[in-house]
């Protein structure tokens, strides 16, 4: 624990095993606000599993996940979300038969109960918020288009937009630029830099150019454990990392 301020997210000895196979093995990890962290690692390193554990999709078999000093383990998914954690999935998960506007509206962080939903109104405030998020994720002109008709990259942006609507304090993105064109990657990089004010962003990514562009700090995961952690330059000069990626 640093003295100046508490980390936003602290993971201690996190472990999960599936039928004896330890996908994540005694992981220790922490993140501060305003930090943009990228997790890299070869396939099967347990990257996605770590995100699944934090957002409650997978139940850990041991260890602690502390977010704003509260234990997340055992909390149902929707409560974790309401507590301030947003998650983007590997394949874009948007609602194809709703419009962009409606996709964003669903993520507006109030009226989440049954009756809240019935009483929910599109106040000017809500509309304004949706429009500003849509603008941020480059979809302002597409508000009335159904999700199914967006391009792959636009779907990825829409999902990031849906997360922004929730105003999460921790944003987790699983391969946000997969399938994007170079131009789209660049815009996404700018977007991520812009939105990491006042929150932490945790990203899994394979595109090293992209990682280099955006990461404040990089964590390398291998066989469920942390292999190395540091700046991109440090990681690139780390021999163990090179071994894992390149062989011997």
């Amino acid at each position, binding site marked *: 624990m640093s003295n100046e301020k508490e980390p936003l997210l602290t993971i201690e000895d996190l472990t999960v095993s599936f039928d004896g196979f330890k996908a994540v093995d005694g992981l220790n990890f922490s993140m501060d606000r305003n930090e943009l962290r990228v997790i890299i690692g070869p396939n*099967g390193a347990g990257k996605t599993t770590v995100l699944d554990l934090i957002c409650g999709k997978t139940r850990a078999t041991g260890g602690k996940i502390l977010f704003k000093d509260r234990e997340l383990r055992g909390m149902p998914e929707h409560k974790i979300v309401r507590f301030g954690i947003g998650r983007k999935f590997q394949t874009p998960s948007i609602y194809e038969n709703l419009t962009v506007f409606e996709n964003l509206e669903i993520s507006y962080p109030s009226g989440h109960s049954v009756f809240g939903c019935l009483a929910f109104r599109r106040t000017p405030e809500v509309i304004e918020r949706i429009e500003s998020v849509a603008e941020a994720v480059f979809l302002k002109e597409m508000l009335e288009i159904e999700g199914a008709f967006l391009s*792959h990259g636009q779907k990825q942006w829409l999902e990031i937009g849906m997360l922004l609507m929730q105003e999460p304090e921790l944003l987790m993105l699983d391969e946000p630029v997969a399938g994007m064109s170079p131009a789209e990657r660049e815009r996404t990089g700018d977007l991520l830099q812009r939105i990491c004010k006042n929150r932490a962003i945790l990203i899994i990514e*394979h595109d090293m150019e992209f990682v280099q562009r955006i990461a404040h700090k990089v964590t390398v995961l291998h066989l469920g454990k942390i292999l190395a952690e540091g700046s991109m330059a440090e990681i690139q000069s780390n021999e163990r990392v090179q071994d894992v990626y390149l062989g011997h």
Partner: protein
Amino acid sequence: MLEVKDLEVGYGQSEVIHSASFSAGKAEILAIMGRNGMGKTTLLKSLIGLIGARSGSVKVDGVEVSGLPSHQRVKSGLAYVPQGRMIFSHLTVFENLISGARGAVAKATFDEIYSLFPVLAEMRKRKGGNLSGGQQQQLAIGRALITNPKVLVLDEPTEGIQPSIIKDIARVLQEIRKMRDLTIVVSEQVISFMMDVCDRALVIDRGRFVHEDTRANLDPDKVKRWLAV
């Protein structure tokens, strides 16, 4: 032996493989190198028919197989060892081995496979799921060889395998090629393994081939640039 022309593959609206063309000759070992997420697995899956290609042609020994279901591609002489091995974990080792066989399996074929992988003979009654990663990899290769293929396609056979065993796998692939005059296409990101095993290598980056050379002319450092962090 294997001829791929203008292959385009994608999911939904995104295209992952852009107009890929390559070929591999008889008894050649061809490595396809690239980092995660660059399209290796998608390319190989589309060869065996697990993902439909949008356009392009795949020929095995002169026979067009694109558009066919997987099992007919196997019949035409392709065999596939997937990423992550995909052993049938509830079937025994022996059952896994013969799962793809058509009709009775010649004793010679078994002998050959068991001589390559003695451990499979020892463990033939064990459940596939109880094998170690390296043993599963051997089983997956054995399972692919049972159909006497002309072209063997392996997707990252070294993934999650200990370095010592990686060497064994390289040796075995060489041996198989010698024994059966088999064409082998293997995707990889471990350079040392590639240098041990292949005759020729292609480098794939974001769905396109960006580099090609024979092993003799291959400059590992150059390839590293495409693979390294």
